């Protein structure tokens, strides 16, 4: 499937996210790859007629999530991103997220964070449902599931990076590694992420 076809498919997606997150996408691209890379991505989006007017977006207003997904897709295409780069993008979004700072009260402990995870999710997306399935301190792992969140496989990588970095704010370690154990795009009913730490 070519890019245009994929965009066409994504354009059918419903659901919204906060303007600040769409804006942070471009900010992260520039931070990770440089200004030129960001402009290149913007140009491609423009060429495809899908460049969002993100500079005029309000941080806390809702905007279609498809703009977010298309931006990531185009960035992947233009910058040649693979899984690790997408994860890094997710990590970067956490670092720049203002919402994350607002929800800092949940970043006190694993339990606290996971207790507020649903609340936090709803601040980002007006669709899908997140659930903390397990905190296993003995095994040093957490298991998170997301239902009704079938955006695009690239988004799964970004979300995984997002989870890894979010946990890093709570855990006193750098050794955090996550993986998507279940994915709707692989035929599962939901997405499941297991994040392990040392």
């Amino acid at each position, binding site marked *: 499937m070519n890019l245009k076809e994929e965009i066409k498919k994504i354009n059918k997606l419903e659901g919204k996210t906060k303007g600040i997150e769409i804006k942070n996408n471009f900010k*992260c691209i520039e*931070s*990770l790859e440089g200004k030129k890379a960001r402009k290149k991505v913007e140009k491609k989006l423009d060429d495809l007629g899908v460049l969002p007017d993100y500079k005029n977006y*309000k*941080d*806390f*207003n809702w905007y279609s999530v498809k703009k977010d997904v298309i931006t990531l897709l185009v960035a992947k295409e233009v910058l040649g991103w693979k899984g690790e780069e997408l994860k890094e993008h997710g*990590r*970067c979004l*956490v*670092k*720049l997220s*203002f919402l*994350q*700072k607002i929800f*800092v*009260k949940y*970043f*006190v*402990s694993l339990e606290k964070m996971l207790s507020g995870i649903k609340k936090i999710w709803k601040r980002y997306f007006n669709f899908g449902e997140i659930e903390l399935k397990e905190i296993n301190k003995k095994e040093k792992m957490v298991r998170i599931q997301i239902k009704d969140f079938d955006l695009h496989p690239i988004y799964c990588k970004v979300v995984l990076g997002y989870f890894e*970095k979010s946990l*890093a*704010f*709570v*855990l*006193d370690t*750098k050794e955090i590694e996550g993986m998507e154990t279940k994915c709707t795009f692989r035929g599962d009913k939901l997405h499941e992420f297991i994040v392990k730490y040392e």
Partner: protein
Amino acid sequence: MNKEKTQQELKEARRDLEDLKNYITQITSFLPVAICTTSAAGKIMEINDAFKKLSGYKELEIVGNSVREIFQEKEKIRGIIEKQEAKEKVENTEVTLLTKRGGKVPIKLSYRTRKDTNEETIGYFLSLIDITEKVEAEKKLKEKVETRTTELRHKINELEKTREALMNMLEDFEEERRKVEEEKKKTEAIITNFADGVLMVNNQNKIALINPKAEELLGVETKEVKNKKIKKVNEVPYFEKIFAELGKEIKAVFRKEITMNEDLILEVSAVPVVKEEKQLGILVTLHDITREKRIQKMKTEFVSVAAHQLRTPLSAIKWTLEMLLEGDVGSLTEEQKKFVIKTFKSNERMISLINDLLNVSRIEEGRYLYERKTIDVKKIIKNLIENHKEDLKRKDINLIYKKPKRKTNIIGDKEKIRLAIQNLIDNAVKYTLEGGEIIIELEEEEKNIKFSIQDDGIGISEKQHPRIFSKFFRSKTAVRRETEGSGLGLFIAKNIIEAHGGEIWFDSKEGEGSTFYFKLPLGEKEDN
């Protein structure tokens, strides 16, 4: 309608939130103090521009990292975070920030707990103030203090050494002072017990010291004269006499006889006391020579009487022998004549000795008065040379007489001058070896005549030079050469010359000969 209102309110709340976010972003960006926020786990959540500038990190490089990583004192930071819960805040603790480029920046760190509405700790605010300048200044100050301390320590050491040196000097000084004190006591004891009287006149012309012997001799007590000016003590009769003799400004005097009265004759010497080229005063010694003078007088009188008594029979013997030799009492055989001549010569020597003794007696008694007349020394010398002709011939001595063309007149006692010159010529002839040479020279100077007689005879050893004009002195070489001789000739000559206001001296080297000189003041000049 309600839904629309709710939507409107929600919209306004979002706008307010956005404004608030912008406000917070702008104000943290504006703040010149480096600020960062952390999660409760100490993970950096946000940094401002000042923090970026100070640490060199970009937001993405640092957000999410443990705040401990950016400080050198990791354990201290951990402790601070742990303490936070109890203490709420920590202010101005000094730590070191590790910059991205590996630099170390001293900072003052303030921590404050961030709490939610339930008063639960949800993170921390950190402010970092660069105190590099302060630390540098402190470091410089510390270095300066250390340097000054080192200098001070060094100076203290030096002072300690100086103190030790001074203590040593003080000990040495004390030792020296003790020695000086001892020496002073010794000197005082010597002066006190000195057999002669001692007076010290200081630079202010005051009597600084008078010893017991001087008190006794001068009939005064120390308290009467000590520290008094000479002018004042002159009221004491003896002092007046002494200082009159020594002069107003006392100069060095050697053995000056002063008759204080019939029963006291003092021999007074004055020597300057000099220390390190500075004259401290004059030391006057008073030696009582009364007894010596009496004995001398008695001796002189005895010699005079004895000589007179001896001369009369010797003269009678002389006349008798002359009569015998001239045949007035009949002619003598050759052998008889030979014995009589020998006896006559011995008698002559005896008369000569008696004459010498009489002369000496007169000199010592001060009766050696002379008749002042104009005399021609050149002529006297000529006559004396004539008298010695036979001796000169017998010893094959070449005598050269160098004389000025003009008459060399002096005012004096002709007989005495003749005697003085005769004694000098006698000695030269006597002590010049056979075949030797004598040079007599008479020169006229501006105010004097200068006489010299040079021989190449036996000479006088240098050791005996100082005694050559003493009474009865004969040098060892002279005694070996000529057994006969009274040792009075030079003594008489000296007294005669000096009595005429002249001076006499000599040069001599043993084995090489002698030259005797005298000078006499010129009298009236006359043409030849």
